[in-house]
């Protein structure tokens, strides 16, 4: 049996034959006759250059096939063929393609498992660009800065790393991840695979108008890549892949209310969300709620800057599990304390829930949300599934 492959096709019913894709393709994989524009499966290498220039969206079509449609077959299409009931071996079956790189697809499927079904992007999210850069064709970034975020006396070393992409186009949205390729080889002499990190900066750059991104990385004791990243010095060059992820995204609708629940470096995407909102709708009120857990204030990344964000702009609650002279508190405890507000929010269509952090937080948070929903007279499972279907419930844990 042949292994299924992914094929790039163009929807002949939507395409208007402007040939912009054909003129853009750097390797001549696109051609046309008087009726259809088609992609040569033997040439196309999924570089994605043709995707953003298409005015119609007809270009962004993919089929998993055992035998690719030939050029002749494509020229004869009156409409696109249906997807046969076959899937790529590593695909978890999500609606949106989160990456074109098999390993990353599997990683993100695992991270989004906690949503309880197929993850969907918010209806008003901007369209993400994915996989512009891959292991064979990584982007080069230069380290602009590396700052320790946690107190020197804290238990953890969490760092804020700024990468400058220079002139390399790197369109990344808040909530997306990028891959960092640690240098060197493993015990078997193979190059290391990239590790994924959520960007913690908004789409227009850590500094607006600059082509840079920031990451929030915690040093793990034996972590190969985290130690590499946390030790980077200004001026170092880093190999970057991505961007990845097409569901854990910020809704463009300024009315959408974000309930962001995180622990530790799970705060990275929420920093991006918040900064985007600060830059876009600085006058917004009552549309951001953050529930943030850490061992103590000393270990909470961005604790200083966060305190300066006005409460009308973002409601903030902190849960500390190892604060001196205080009972241990977790994010779910804070959710319960805020049950009235959270319950009222969950009843509205504006509510978008995001959970990000360690896998261990999932169960506790879901139980708390379940109780809150129940006491407000709602069936949690039903509510969660509906919110997920509508792109309003997101989990990314690791």
């Amino acid at each position, binding site marked *: 049996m042949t292994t299924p492959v992914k094929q790039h096709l163009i929807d002949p*019913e939507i395409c208007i034959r402007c040939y912009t894709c054909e003129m853009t393709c750097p390797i001549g994989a696109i051609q046309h006759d008087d009726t259809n524009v088609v992609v040569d499966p033997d040439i196309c290498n999924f570089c994605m250059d043709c995707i*953003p220039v298409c005015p119609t969206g007809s270009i962004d079509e993919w089929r998993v096939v055992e035998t690719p449609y030939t050029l002749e077959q494509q020229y004869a299409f009156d409409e696109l063929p249906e997807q046969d009931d076959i899937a790529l071996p590593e695909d978890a079956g999500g609606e949106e393609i989160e990456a074109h790189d098999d390993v990353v697809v599997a990683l993100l499927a695992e991270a989004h498992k906690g949503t309880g079904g197929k993850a969907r992007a918010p*209806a008003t999210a901007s369209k993400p660009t994915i996989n512009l850069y891959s292991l064979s064709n990584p982007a080069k970034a230069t380290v602009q800065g590396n700052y320790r975020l946690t107190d020197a006396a804290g238990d953890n070393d969490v760092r804020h790393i700024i990468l400058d992409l220079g002139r390399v*186009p790197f369109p990344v949205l808040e909530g997306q991840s990028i891959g960092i390729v640690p240098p060197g080889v493993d015990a078997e002499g193979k190059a290391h695979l990239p590790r994924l990190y959520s960007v913690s900066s908004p789409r227009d750059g850590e500094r607006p108008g600059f082509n840079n991104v920031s990451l929030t990385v915690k040093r793990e004791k034996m972590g190969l890549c985290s130690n590499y990243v946390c030790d980077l010095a200004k001026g170092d060059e880093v190999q970057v892949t991505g961007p990845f992820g097409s569901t854990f995204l910020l809704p*463009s609708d300024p009315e959408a209310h974000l309930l962001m629940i995180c622990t530790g470096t799970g705060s990275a995407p929420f920093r991006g969300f918040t900064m985007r909102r600060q830059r876009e709708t600085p006058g917004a009120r009552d549309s951001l709620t953050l529930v943030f857990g850490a061992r103590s204030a000393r270990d909470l990344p961005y604790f200083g800057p966060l305190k300066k964000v006005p409460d009308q702009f973002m409601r903030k609650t902190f849960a500390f599990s190892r604060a001196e002279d205080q009972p241990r508190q977790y994010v779910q405890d804070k959710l319960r304390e805020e049950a009235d507000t959270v319950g009222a929010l969950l009843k509205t269509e504006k509510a978008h829930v995001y959970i990000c952090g360690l896998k261990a937080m999932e169960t506790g948070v879901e139980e708390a949300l379940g109780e809150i929903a129940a006491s407000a007279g709602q069936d949690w499972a039903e509510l969660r599934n509906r919110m997920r279907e509508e792109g309003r419930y997101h989990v990314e844990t690791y």
Partner: protein
Amino acid sequence: MLDLINVSYDSQIPNNVGLSSDKKVLKALEKWHPGYINWWNDLIPQNFQESMVYLRTAVSVDPKGWAKFDYVKMPEYRWGVLLAPAVEDRRIAMGEHLGEPAWQEVPGEYRNMLKRLIVIQGDTEPGSVEQQRFLGLTAPSLYDMRNLFQVNVEEGRHLWAMVYLLQKYFGRDGREEADDLLVRSSGSEEAPRMLGAFNEETPDWLSFFMFTYFTDRDGKMQLESLAQSGFDPLSRTCRFMLTEEAHHMFVGETGVGRTIQATLEAMTKAGITDPTDINKIRDLGVIDLPTIQKKLNLHYTLSLDLFGQEVSTNAANAFNAGIKGRYMEQRIDDDHKLQNDTYPVTSIKDGKILTEDVPALTAINMRLRDDYVRDAAGGIGRWNKMIAKAGIEYELKLPHEGFHRQIGVFSTVAVDPDGNIVSAEEWAKRREDWLPTKADGDFIQSLMVPCYEPGEYASWIAPPKVGIDNKPGDFEYVKLHMA
């Protein structure tokens, strides 16, 4: 170091031409900018200016970064000066300078010819925005309103592009021409736009779709041939404009297609199979196919006039000088000089329509028009497939090129849509069968009621198959500002 890929926001005007180090031009553009903003503000009704529109903005001319979608208020749209990246060692592709390095400065001997071409191109850009200024008030959906505004802001940016060329390369008279682009105005008695089609009204949305399908397609052909220019800055400007122009073709082709789709669906639902049962079909709140054909006849023929005289020494000179090429010049397999070639051109002899071979150099306009006709036929085929699929017996057709012409060899004779020369009386008698009448216009106008609920569409137009930027059906493409 000049950044030629990423857009520079360090000056008031986003650009990838290093404006901040070109103080003279920057100053000229900044001086021109307030007049432009005034022009825009006086044009589009105020509540739309205040609305948040889901638009794409060029952030870079690289294919991976040039189109980013987001909500923006139109006056805050980042118009700017963006040129496609320079091709290294680019050579002139046609005419007597074939093979010489492309010019980075204006060659003195062609200065006036170049300036004239740039001014004419520049004049069409604001012209169409002026023609379409009130359409937002009757938008059949927020989706369509967003598409209208996208077209409008990009035409605005195209004006910027031409103004940049005038100010950068044509000194004082370039600046004067740039100012005049804001003085002339579509349909004005004292200072009309330069080309006829840009002084016609765009009274309704079907006209808008026909305009973007037929007239913007002329624009595309003109840009294609200017993209071949030996004057490199013009070539690079036009190449980037073409990527945006594709969206305008899209709005036209799908707009007419969705109008037809709504008609077909309504007819099927009401059990009407005769497409000429006009009154019954109109009672369904949709536009009958024969009226669509009449609109097509009108806009197609107005657009053909934009190609000028079939045989033209001006066009020959521009080609020979290497200023303006043919459609897809680089893909044409000939000597690109045309000194000894001929090309078949229609002419009229003894009351008959003939073709005769003339020197190819003089037939540049005719050739571009032929390429246009082929290009325009593609969408008609697509629409006819929809009609056939619905089981209705009707076929839309491009009328004969001689029909209803004001410019060129056909302007002296009366030709019917099938290409027969008829008497002026006969033509006048049948005019109402071929071209939209006032009553047709009134009927279409009666359907033009705004539909501002996300995901809803006026009766006469079907929803699109795919949303912009892959957005779902009920996406709020415009967040209307309610004053």
